[in-house]
């Protein structure tokens, strides 16, 4: 271990959370709403990072886990009239279950075949959403009414359409997932995952069940991505098939590569950076995908370690 005392690491992460909380009171309306969206999607990136960064499994189909959460939460609210907490749990359960099934199948392959298999399963999921348009709303999507997005805890009720409540809810989810990721990474399980990434044969020789560990990582990653999707549906009130398209499988990869794979804060940095680059450049051009494309190529050519990865390499060796 590079870091003997965990205090510094935890202080950094708590500090980031406190800073984000403070921003709630400082940011103008537009940026407050953008930040809420970024934090919800950074959770998606963190889920992706768990598999891609730590286990080294490059999936091109994580949009299916995100949209499993999105639809798991959205459809139960829309069709069954469930409350927000039940719908949120339903979304995560859908994602975890899907991840278990996909993991059992896809982990029989590795390398390039794993990427293509995950991409194909995600494509099937996307087409299924279009096929069952009567329930899912197809590519039009569904809008979840404001009335069904109110959480009542005891006497207090929170309206998730209110910008401040939405911001704090997104921050709460982000903080929980960030601390869970940190704990997982520092745990025995996390180190076995890194060992699998570095040398799977040797890890197996040392007596670890690599398949079971990889499957656990796929399910954890799927559940986190589903939590992000469920939160997105409930916070922003829209569920649509474009969230299941191949583009939403590529975006978390881009965010993680940009922020730094296998760093706990990288997904947030990458998502934040990409959102603001898009936001600023959209003033000059509508060619948003061009920027994504150029960013991907430049990253993979010149900075394969990403922002936080480079910082760790140059200055702060103790960054988790």
């Amino acid at each position, binding site marked *: 271990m590079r870091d003997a005392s965990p205090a510094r690491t935890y202080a950094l992460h708590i500090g980031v959370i406190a800073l984000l909380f403070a921003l709630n009171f400082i940011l103008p309306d537009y940026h407050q709403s953008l930040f809420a969206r970024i934090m919800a999607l950074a959770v998606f990136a963190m889920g992706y990072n768990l598999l891609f960064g730590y286990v080294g499994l490059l999936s091109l189909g994580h949009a299916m886990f995100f949209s499993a959460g999105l639809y798991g939460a959205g459809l139960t609210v829309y069709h069954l009239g469930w409350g927000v907490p039940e719908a949120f749990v339903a979304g995560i359960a859908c994602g975890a279950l899907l991840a278990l099934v996909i993991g059992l199948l896809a982990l029989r392959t590795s390398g390039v075949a794993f990427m293509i298999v995950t991409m194909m399963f995600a494509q099937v999921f996307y087409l299924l959403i279009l096929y069952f348009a009567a329930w899912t709303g197809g590519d039009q999507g569904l809008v979840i009414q404001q009335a069904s997005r109110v959480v009542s805890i005891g006497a207090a009720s929170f309206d998730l359409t209110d910008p401040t409540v939405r911001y704090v809810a997104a921050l709460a989810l982000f903080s929980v997932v960030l601390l869970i990721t940190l704990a997982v990474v520092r745990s025995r399980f996390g180190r076995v995952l890194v060992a699998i990434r570095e040398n799977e044969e040797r890890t197996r020789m040392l007596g670890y069940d690599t398949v079971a560990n990889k499957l656990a990582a796929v399910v954890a990653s799927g559940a986190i991505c589903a939590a992000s999707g469920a939160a997105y549906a409930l916070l922003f009130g829209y569920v649509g098939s474009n969230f299941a398209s191949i583009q939403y499988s590529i975006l978390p990869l881009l965010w993680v590569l940009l922020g730094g794979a296998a760093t706990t804060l990288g997904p947030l940095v990458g998502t934040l950076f990409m959102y603001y680059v898009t936001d600023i450049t959209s003033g000059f051009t509508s*060619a948003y995908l*061009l920027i994504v494309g150029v960013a991907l190529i430049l990253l993979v050519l010149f900075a394969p370690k990403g922002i936080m990865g480079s910082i760790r390499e140059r200055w702060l060796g103790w960054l988790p």
Partner: protein
Amino acid sequence: MRFGPHLLLAALEGLVTSAVLALTALGLSLVFGVMRVVNVAHGEFFMLGAVLAWAVSTAISGHPAIGFVAALVIAPLLVGLVALLAERLVLRRLNYNPEGTIVATIGMLYIIQQLALTFYGPEARPVEPPFSYRILLPWFGYSGYKLAVVAASAILLVITWLVLTRTKIGLIMRATQYDRETAQAFGIPVERVYAGVFAVGAMLAAIAAVLIVPISQAHYLMGQDPLLLSFIVVIIGGLGSLRGTVVAAVLIGLSDGIVSMFFSPTLAKIIATLIVAMVLVFRPQGLFGATSR
């Protein structure tokens, strides 16, 4: 129409799809076989071929056949040039690392697609076929051009097969595919072979696109379906096996044509994609891929 003629029509349509698909998938298969690179931007080279075909054929006045022939020559050459540039500037610097090249070709996909949208626009535009002769069957008339596409594709496939198996270039390519390091030790310019293969792969997709564009119009998103179908064909046929690719293309094209005439096309796609994913999971060498054993 009764069932029999209906089925014949579906089979003919499927055959046209197969012909174009075989060419596109052959390009993808060559690039994967020789370079071990999964080219996600392959569908965009297809699209680029179609869009350039429209540009060339509208720039040239006179009989539609002149414009079409010009497009058939110029569009693939330009696409090959773009591919050569991409190989030089990006793939070579990544040292053909499988994961890096996938990310990079995804980047190329977005760049090419967005540039096509910016400069060509969101409209679907037709290209006039070089001739409009209709072959009269007892039940319906059928476009002679579509049958010409099937013939042209078959000829190109045979030429590619002859080049691969009967010429020195083919021998060099197969040697590189078999063992890169040993090939290099024997003085084969591996980097030049890679650049050539990547360009030829893109050009095959472009030729397929020019052939199909008089039937279905040129559109900036038209690369997505061929990409997915080519993946399916290459996987079912066994990665890097030419004969398997052709057999799988005919199989997929025919069944796609027939299934989507009688069932919903979305359902057909769902089933096809799922079957392929399962083939990849349980039989990674493909249904016809005996080479890897």
